[in-house]
């Protein structure tokens, strides 16, 4: 198995690295198999504002189309609501990750355990760390880092894409699952 370098170069993780999301079909397939997916949206703190805006549009649209439960961390709740999607919860990302590591958690919407989680928009180091917590504490959970940066701690991640490439991927995924 060969893998790219983490976006923050030093944030390597050990022996197991995320698989690369090579195309929209990967995401679509993951979604198709998932019984109860969750999306955790952070505050896009370090992103260029314009880019962050487009990114939020894209992933919230995806969540809507795919009927994914939503947790927004902190102020991200406002961004979601602006886009017409009310998050199912506003618990802190840390709290959310901890609960996800409990296979008996009733889920953010009370509809039972989640088997797949998309994470996007947290500070890189924090997302990397929470993904690590899930890799270690929730071995059965599939984690997808949805940012354009490679996140080795996830089960699946994009491989340091340019913003426009990434946008294209997400939109295409939305189209694919919409069919």
């Amino acid at each position: 198995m060969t893998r790219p370098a983490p976006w923050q170069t030093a944030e390597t993780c050990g022996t197991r690295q995320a698989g690369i999301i090579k195309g929209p079909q990967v995401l679509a397939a993951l979604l198709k198999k998932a019984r109860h997916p969750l999306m955790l949206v952070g505050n896009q703190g370090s992103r260029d504002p314009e880019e962050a805006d487009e990114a939020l549009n894209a992933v919230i649209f995806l969540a809507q189309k795919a009927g994914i439960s939503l947790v927004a961390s902190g102020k991200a709740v406002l961004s979601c609501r602006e886009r017409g999607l009310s998050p199912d919860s506003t618990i802190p990302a840390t709290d959310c990750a901890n609960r996800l590591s409990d296979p008996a958690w009733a889920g953010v919407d009370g509809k039972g355990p989640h088997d797949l989680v998309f994470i996007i928009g947290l500070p890189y180091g924090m997302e990397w760390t929470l993904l690590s917590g899930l890799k270690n504490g929730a071995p059965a959970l599939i984690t997808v880092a949805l940012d354009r940066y490679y996140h080795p701690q996830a089960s699946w991640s994009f491989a340091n894409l340019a913003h426009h490439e990434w946008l294209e991927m997400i939109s295409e995924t939305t189209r694919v699952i919409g069919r």
Partner: protein
Amino acid sequence: MVLLDRNTVYLEVQEVETDAARIKDLRVTIGGIRGLAPAVPRGPMPMPGPGTLRRWDRKLLSRYRPFYMPFCELCCLCTFGKCDLSGGRKGACGITMNAQQSRIVLLACCIGAATHTAHAREILDHIVSRFGERHPLDTGGSQIDITAPITRLVCGFEPQTVGDLDRALRYAENQITQLLAATHTGQEGDYLDLESKVFHAGMVDHLGMEIADISQVSAYSFPRADADAPLVELGMASVDTKKPVILVVGHNVVPSVGILEYARENDLLGSIEVTGICCTSLDLTRYSEKAKIIGPISWQLRYIRSGIPSVVVVDEQCVRTDLPDECRAVRAPVIATSDKNALGLPDRTGDPADEIVEDLVSGRVTGVLLRDPDIVGEVAVKTANHVFEKRKGITAIPPGESVTASAGECTHCSFCQRACPAELPLVEVIREAGAGDTGALASLYDLCIGCGRCESACPRGLPLHSFIISASCERIRDEKFSIRSGRGAISDVEIREVGGPIVLGEIPGIVAFVGCSNFPRGGSELASMCREFARRRFIVCTSGCAAITAGQYRNDEGKTLYEEFSGKFEAGGVLNVGSCVSNAHISGAAIKIAAIFAKRELDGNYEEIADYVHNRVGAVGVAWGAMSQKAAAIASGFWRLGIPVIVGPHGSKYRRMLLGRADHPDDWKVNDARTGEEVCIGPVPEHLFVAAETAEEAMVLVAKLSMRPNDTTRGRSIKCTHYIDLHRRLYGTMPGDIHLFIRNPADVPLTFKDEIWAHLEAHGWKEQPVPDPTLLEPKGRRVKGGKPK
């Protein structure tokens, strides 16, 4: 006269006659014991060992369970390694991933506790040698009866003199050794037992901090629980660059005192500037209002590169290890002063001062190690005076034109950006600078934490941090603030006044902003958090770099926090307690509320006092920019008292959180102290250690985590008001979990009454009694497993 080992025994005998001895003028001093009255440690658990408080710790840990976030899947602590611990694998020693993570946390906390304790040892030994071991402890004159709350709580005796502290310090050194041993391969293997030892390390850390601070306060006449401690100057622009400038960096004020003393004795105080970064500067301004604070840890590169400091004196802790190189680049002689941080410099302690000065001034040596604070004083002042003229005009910050030209050499490879812990958009910014516009560079000034990783990563060797500083020179010219110098302890009088309102919940909480503020926007976010909670009539404490950074931002009227708010321990006060070691006064205040206001037995009575603090005192720690092992140890000391700590997003890098589960009602059942019956207290405080993603999230969490099981209805209603208010303002909605915090109709805040009732009904809310909660076993009941020794 017989003078024994200074740290243990002082024995004086003027005349002896043996055989059924006759002795005249016998004076025996043993530790802090004068005459023949021994301070026998008192209380149920004086000087607890690493396992003594295990039952208490496990109570907390069963509710606030560790969530581990490994930094790495491998362990490499011994030559069996690397061992792969991923996917449930065990190491060659049998260890699991969870235990390995808690072992690393323990290691970090041992380092942190050792750092404060070793620092306390240096200060204490120095003070004892200067002022005598019988120098009285005084942290607040008649205002303070409980001088050393942590020492008394942990060790079970009451120190009266600096000499008395030795015994407590020896206990700390002993415990650190035991705890560190537990991290050895093939020692502690249970992750909860390791976490319990983490708590123990934290408790010892606070003890070490207390010893360090109360001895320096007593010896150097720092402000003593002084709400009106003087305002001192802060910021690069506060320096008078027409004078020779000495910079002191680090945490141990002793050599810096040597500098001020020498200057004073030689009438040079008016003709030099003594400036500092980090805790040494905080403590130096407690010693003398003449000293100036430049900024927190992240100001090291920018200030030294500016060329302003003529001489740089480093002591210990949080000092960039490359300062000698940085100083060499601007031809500023450097003086190391600590065995713990010798930096490879030649030891010239034994040489005549003038010879050393000559060598430094001529550049024959670029730095020296001086292991005596008096010599440091003389050499630093003389050298500064001598090099001042020679160094004029030297700076390592490139001028604007040169930035533009160099930026043109950038290949946009993005290595700098991918190395930046603050995730700054360096590639874009350098592109614009190359095109002649350095505005974007300047916009990073507040975000850049001066770590230099970008520069180190750049294949073209571009000094990006210096570029940012160069582009921000206007901004820096304006960097002149004021900060109240560290006040030290909280007085007994203050505790008595606020004890009631705090325990009853009328003062909604005590928020302590501590730690290193070296993360993007750390400073401005911190200042706005302080302001928010001071305005909400919380008691706001600051310390260390957080205290400095919080002072770097002004309100609309141009006032810093310290000018805007009172320095008293009262609703709406903003108190700079002092340097990192002054953090002990914050935990000390919580302990004193239990001891003074609630009259709980203090000496050696950790469990009961912690149970009190956890259930009744709405204190919350915020370490927004926590970076160091010391910060980890400080947090652990709060955890063991049951006080929650919030960290910034980077704080997730401490590898584990301690999180409660609001959705598990069973976790929140406790005994009622009055009835002995099991009662449900709701998720308060919900977490013990949690990383917040943004300052907004942290603020909502502070409001929430300041709730306590024992809040009066009036207090709970006030706390809920703040929680709801912040949640609505920042997230736009009523908090979805508010029903968990309303116990009965009287808890409901009036302002949001209807909304809340609707919410309560929707969530099938039922009224609950207000309990008198305790995590302790009811007294007198036989406990299976027996009492820990």
